[in-house]
């Protein structure tokens, strides 16, 4: 009887960490995402004067076969130095193999070099475009709207 009790205690001591890990949810889990969306950004000018608006375009492509729904496209930049009209845009749906182009008006409040990129989010997965540099030079007499 004593041996049986000792065996049970020993076995339970060995299994306890596994029970504890299972109870606390520890462990390694992984998910692999395949992203069908691709986004590219183009600037109509690489250099503008302060207060002069320029255009930035983002082209979103659905490389997959299934449609993408509720797509959010955001033009990311330093908002302290640039004024971007309505930086987050929605695209209701994009069929497989199709693309959509969105454009923003960008205006520099202060001289400097600004890095811009577009971020597209669909089905909870975000993809960033390559980033471009917009140089804002002083000399403009206008003010950004």
């Amino acid at each position, binding site marked *: 009887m004593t041996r049986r009790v000792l065996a049970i205690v020993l076995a339970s001591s060995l299994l306890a960490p596994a029970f504890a890990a299972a109870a606390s949810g520890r462990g390694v889990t992984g998910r692999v995402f395949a992203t069908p969306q691709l986004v590219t950004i183009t600037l109509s000018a690489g250099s503008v004067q302060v207060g002069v608006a320029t255009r930035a375009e983002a082209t979103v492509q659905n490389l997959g076969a299934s449609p993408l729904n509720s797509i959010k496209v955001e033009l990311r930049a330093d*908002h302290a130095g640039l004024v971007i009209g309505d930086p987050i845009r929605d695209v209701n749906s994009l069929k497989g193999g199709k693309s959509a182009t969105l454009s923003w008006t960008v205006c520099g409040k202060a001289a400097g070099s600004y*890095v811009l990129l577009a971020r597209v989010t669909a089905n909870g997965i975000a993809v*960033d475009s390559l980033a471009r540099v917009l140089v804002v030079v002083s000399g403009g007499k206008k003010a950004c709207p």
Partner: protein
Amino acid sequence: MRCIQLAVAVVLLVALEAAPVAASSGVSVDLGRVDITDALMPGQAYSLPTLGVRNPGTEPTSYVMVASAVQDASLRHPDAAWFVFEPSALTLGPGETAQVQMRLVLPRDAAPGAYQVLLGAQISSLATGASVGAAAAARTTFSIRPANAIDAFAASIGQLVSDLWPWSAIVPSVFALASAGWLIRRRFAIHLDVRKRSAR
């Protein structure tokens, strides 16, 4: 029967003791990568996209903004001092998000080439006083163009040497030796003679 009850009690005791406290702090950022396609100029400052830092945990947490190196031998690691964060440290409550401005200030003597760095937020301390090092970051790549024609020439030579190694060392060495031999033969007369020693 009493022995079985004892064994069950021991199992429960060990299991409870081994169970860790559930984590209630963390960090996330809202940018995955910043790959700048335009070559950057030494001596210039660049405003990077604003980085959103979020506390997804359940307790107030302090963060410090960091620029850390990526273990990739093919790309250079920029100096952490090149990056300016505003604010450089912040404390967020559970579920709160803050926007951090990031600037890349390149020194005039920045070496031309391709660079890679991780820009993000690292947990500096919890409200409980504990300190952990979890971090979330955006991978950032950029390239620096040479500041002038001499730098451009030096950079292209350096790149050529690196790309064609070891032939980039062997071929010039052979050429240099051949040239030296040709010059020596042209200016000096080298006479090698083998004579038998006369018997004394």
